[in-house]
């Protein structure tokens, strides 16, 4: 650790939190007071006395050869300390989450609009901006490879990555593919078994995570030739694993500490400014801070994969699904990022939570000169859910059935099989979730006699006083996996320490889990209380001094790192009880720690933990590994690929101004099985937040890319929902324990983001009678003015 002062480091130190609430309660967030006082140090708040500001020069072209880079004028700018290009990188030149295909700084060519080419360190952001503008890059601009047709014909249109450019790539512009066949597959014979067939082509636009805290961090060089990096990320250890080789230093000399994270939603799973800040700090010997402005943020992280999808479903006259066929083409953009996992999810989850005897699926991710796409909340499953749920509504119309009843008729439940051949071996209350949202009371009907314009589509913009407003209702349900899949062991580590401080037993929890706002540290304190019978818990800053906690993604942190805290705390409890056995010769086998005492179920309280611990501390570290999974077979998609499944159902009520194509969501109801709500307040918050991002995708959020160029890299033109766009979101929580999971819990964060979008689109469809095969739905779609 650096010995120099860093401003506002209260959350970079231990945070003490006291409460009687263990799991199942909703104690207050340990970081809540710091956050409401403005004292919580986010990565962009860090300040060091002699720090410099880092900034990148980014390509204005999506595809070009770099003929030359002239930094001479930039270097001469007063206040500039370093200007670095690809040639200055001391170690590995490439990095990546799954495939090391991304250059730390572009060399010879740029592959997307916004790719970093050079970096500058200067004494003030404005000095850095002026210096960046003085770097002269000579480009040979090439026609970008951006459409599916162009990507799939590299011999005509070229390669995003030449076949020889990196080792794991040999499929033209296909980054990853996954096929799946189950039952008889989809053949003419199978089609003939269906009475009704519905088909459709669907499209999903490129969504952005739009976390509010911009990419940022502070790199501080240390005297041992290493580096301390304070950063907002989702996974400290995988950051370190990617950064250290580029810096040419061993991993142990690169120490990462989690600074305050202003939201993540997948967008911080890949590196952004980390390598650049470290390279500049390494070169200048000074601390370097980088903070992206909002426009740079749109270029600085990966987005949700846009998708083009073909779906076909066949059913019997009474509504039983006979077969389902799909092809999903995901645009992965210039670099692989998480594309392989996104494809795996799309293929394995892409037919939804339904029992379908015969299935075929073909999912691919393309390399293109569009912006790189990777992790965003619900990845792979979000895109597909819009496809299969739209199909379910179409099928209901074709069969003249109620859309909820059709879904319930085909809903999977415990004991059924996924198209991958994996049996669902824990509760899967799909039909019940649908019933619950259907049974919830509806909001009051549209009353056009007593209107507040703020409650209508257009709201303050005063576009309607009731004219053209039609109400619609839609339903949907979705499925998501929890945890990393396909044979990956994304274990988590936790260290728990128990000691007496100020006459009271205090548990300290130390993990590398990225608290990105989800409330993981609240839950860790609750678990420690439940397992150790204490009230006082100290949350140690997340850093790389402890083992990996895996990523804060895939709805996995409470399951995985929460599980690790549970096991470490159980081990500490056992160690304390052992100590008691040795000291007092207890023979009971019904001992546990409750209310600060060692308690025997049969004999009552035996001794206070304070007395038993004395001056000793018990400090143990445990890893939590989920049950193993296996990769999907490349051709058939078969395999026990996922750790756990999670389901959410929604009902959307919308008012649409059908003349202007403006939408106001009136209510968005969610029902979700969470296994066990460790913190009900946080669980509801996750579901409401997840629904809201789904609402954004349904009606407004899209990064508009034309010929590889991003057209709306700002919050002026990339719109996310305001409080006037988001309706009340009643949440109904089911708690059916999963016997395989710690406390029976089920990952929560993503399922609502998967499922809610189609319900909103279905409601708009009901109000307007328009097919709506593309999201986000724009006013142009609703008014025939595209």
């Amino acid at each position, binding site marked *: 650790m650096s010995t120099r002062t860093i401003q506002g480091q209260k959350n970079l130190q231990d945070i003490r939190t006291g409460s009687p609430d263990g799991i199942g309660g909703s104690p207050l967030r340990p970081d809540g007071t710091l956050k409401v006082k403005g004292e919580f140090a986010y990565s962009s708040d860090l300040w060091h006395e002699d720090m410099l500001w880092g900034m990148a020069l980014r390509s204005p072209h999506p595809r070009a050869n770099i003929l030359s880079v002239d930094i001479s004028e930039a270097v001469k700018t007063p206040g500039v300390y370093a200007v670095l290009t690809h040639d200055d990188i001391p170690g590995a030149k490439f990095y990546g989450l799954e495939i090391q295909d991304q250059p730390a700084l572009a060399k010879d060519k740029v592959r997307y609009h916004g790719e970093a080419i050079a970096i500058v360190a200067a004494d003030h952001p404005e000095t850095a901006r002026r210096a960046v503008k003085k770097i002269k890059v000579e480009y040979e601009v090439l026609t970008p490879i951006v459409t599916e047709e162009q990507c799939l014909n590299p011999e005509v249109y070229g390669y995003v990555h030449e076949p020889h450019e990196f080792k794991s790539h040999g499929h033209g512009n296909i980054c990853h593919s996954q096929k799946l066949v189950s039952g008889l597959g989809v053949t003419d014979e199978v089609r003939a078994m269906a009475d009704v067939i519905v088909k459709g082509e669907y499209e999903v636009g490129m969504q952005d995570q739009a976390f509010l805290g911009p990419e940022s961090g502070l790199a501080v060089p240390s005297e041992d030739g290493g580096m301390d990096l304070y950063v907002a990320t989702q996974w400290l250890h995988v950051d370190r694993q990617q950064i250290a080789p580029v810096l040419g230093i061993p991993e142990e000399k690169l120490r990462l500490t989690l600074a305050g994270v202003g939201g993540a939603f997948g967008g911080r799973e890949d590196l952004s400014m980390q390598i650049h800040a470290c390279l500049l700090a390494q070169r200048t010997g000074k601390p370097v801070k980088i903070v992206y402005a909002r426009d740079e943020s749109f270029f600085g992280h990966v987005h949700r994969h846009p998708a083009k999808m073909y779906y076909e479903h066949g059913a019997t006259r009474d509504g039983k699904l006979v077969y389902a066929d799909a092809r999903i083409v995901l645009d992965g953009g210039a670099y692989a990022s998480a594309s392989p996992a996104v494809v795996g999810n799309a293929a394995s989850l892409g037919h939804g939570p339904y029992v379908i005897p015969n299935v075929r699926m073909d999912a691919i991710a393309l390399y293109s000169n569009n912006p790189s796409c990777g992790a965003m909340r619900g990845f792979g499953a979000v895109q597909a859910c819009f496809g299969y749920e739209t199909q379910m509504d179409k099928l209901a119309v074709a069969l003249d059935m109620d859309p909820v009843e059709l879904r319930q008729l085909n809903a999977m439940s415990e004991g059924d099989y996924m198209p991958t051949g994996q049996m669902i071996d824990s509760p899967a209350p799909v039909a019940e979730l649908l019933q619950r949202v259907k049974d919830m009371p509806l909001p009051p009907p549209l009353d056009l006699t007593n209107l507040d314009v703020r409650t209508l589509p257009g709201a303050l913009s005063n576009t309607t006083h009731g004219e053209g407003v039609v109400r619609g209702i839609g339903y949907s349900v979705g499925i998501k996996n929890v945890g990393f899949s396909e044979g990956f062991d994304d274990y988590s580590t936790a260290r728990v320490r128990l000691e007496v401080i100020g006459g009271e037993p205090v548990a300290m929890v130390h993990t590398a889990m990225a608290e990105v706002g989800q409330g993981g540290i609240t839950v860790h304190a609750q678990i420690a209380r439940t397992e150790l019978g204490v009230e006082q818990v100290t949350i140690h800053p997340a850093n790389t001094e402890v083992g990996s906690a895996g990523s804060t993604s895939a709805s996995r942190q409470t399951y995985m790192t929460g599980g690790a805290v549970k096991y470490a705390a159980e081990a500490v409890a056992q160690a304390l009880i052992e100590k008691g056995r040795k000291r007092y010769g207890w023979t009971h086998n019904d001992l546990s720690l409750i209310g600060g005492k060692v308690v025997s179920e049969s004999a009552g309280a035996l001794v206070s933990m304070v007395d038993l611990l004395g001056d000793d501390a018990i400090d143990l570290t445990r890893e939590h590994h989920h049950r193993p999974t296996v990769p999907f077979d490349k051709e058939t998609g078969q395999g026990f690929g996922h750790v756990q499944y999670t389901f959410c159902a929604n009902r959307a009520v919308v008012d649409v101004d059908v003349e202007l194509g403006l939408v106001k969501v009136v209510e968005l109801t969610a029902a979700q099985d969470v296994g066990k709500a460790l913190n009900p307040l946080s669980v509801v918050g996750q579901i409401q937040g997840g629904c809201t991002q789904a609402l954004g995708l349904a009606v407004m959020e899209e990064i508009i890319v034309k010929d590889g160029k991003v*057209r709306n890299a700002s919050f002026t033109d990339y*719109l996310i929902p305001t409080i006037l766009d988001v309706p009340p979101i009643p949440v109904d929580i089911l708690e059916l324990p999963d016997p395989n999971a710690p406390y029976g819990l089920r990952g929560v964060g993503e399922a609502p983001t998967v499922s809610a979008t189609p319900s909103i689109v279905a409601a708009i469809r009901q109000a307007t009678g328009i097919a709506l095969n593309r999201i986000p739905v724009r006013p*142009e779609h609703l*008014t025939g*003015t*595209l």
Partner: protein
Amino acid sequence: MEFLRPATWDEALAAKAEFPTALPISGGTDVMVEMNFDVHRPSAILDLNRITELRQWEITDGVVRLGASVPYARIINELSEPLPGLALAAHTVGSPQIRNRGGVGGNLGGASPAGDAHPALLAAGRDVFVEVASAARGTRMIAIDDFYVGVKRNSMEKDELILRVHIPVADGPQQFSKIGTRNAMVIAVCAFGFALHPKNGTVGTGIGSAAPTPRRAVAAEEFLQGVLAERGLWESGDLLGAEVIQQFGELVKAAASPIDDVRGTADYRRHSLAVMARRTLTWTWNDYSKQIRSAA
């Protein structure tokens, strides 16, 4: 870069004369975005916050003399009766925080076709004037119809600053509608302002974000004025009829020359202008009819 902080209007004009490329800043809601995103690096920034008269308004002889920096929030709270159209437009500007800072002067100075105040000012009548001044030549009044000359260009000289806008007190109902793809905080995809001026038997229109400049729908105004006069509707307050309303919408639509951009297509802009024109005409006429009937 210089940062100039004149304490009086005369000092401000002197500063603008000395630094003609200085960028005036008041609410900062446009200027600072350009500074933060490195769009613009003026030689100097000319802060107008200390100049009292820019933040004042008064009504003299049936005309509101509105200081260029009176924030939109105050227009909404203090001027919704004399300037109902502008107050409605002000209510759609950015966010509450933006409305606490931004004023009409910024919209006029920037002259973006998307500025929310423009359609309301145009609709308020041909006798709306922008009062500008320079140290060298003193004050002059620019009629609103002569003010907008191109994309983000107005008819001001480099040494001039906007002091206030002169807007007649409304003598009839006024409306403003704006399209955005979310329910708050949007830049106009397109916007429409409409006003009835029963005293002189005219109507006012203003189209925003659907042409290189804000503009009025002249043919639509003339058509409607003709109908109102011919049929004696100003006096009777009788129904306009669906055909008139429809035709008015079509003429407003025809007056626009929008483009496709990330915020919307040209077709959608035309379509929605027609809808907004029909609706705002209907709302204002309904209000006007009620007034006539209750007066009778």
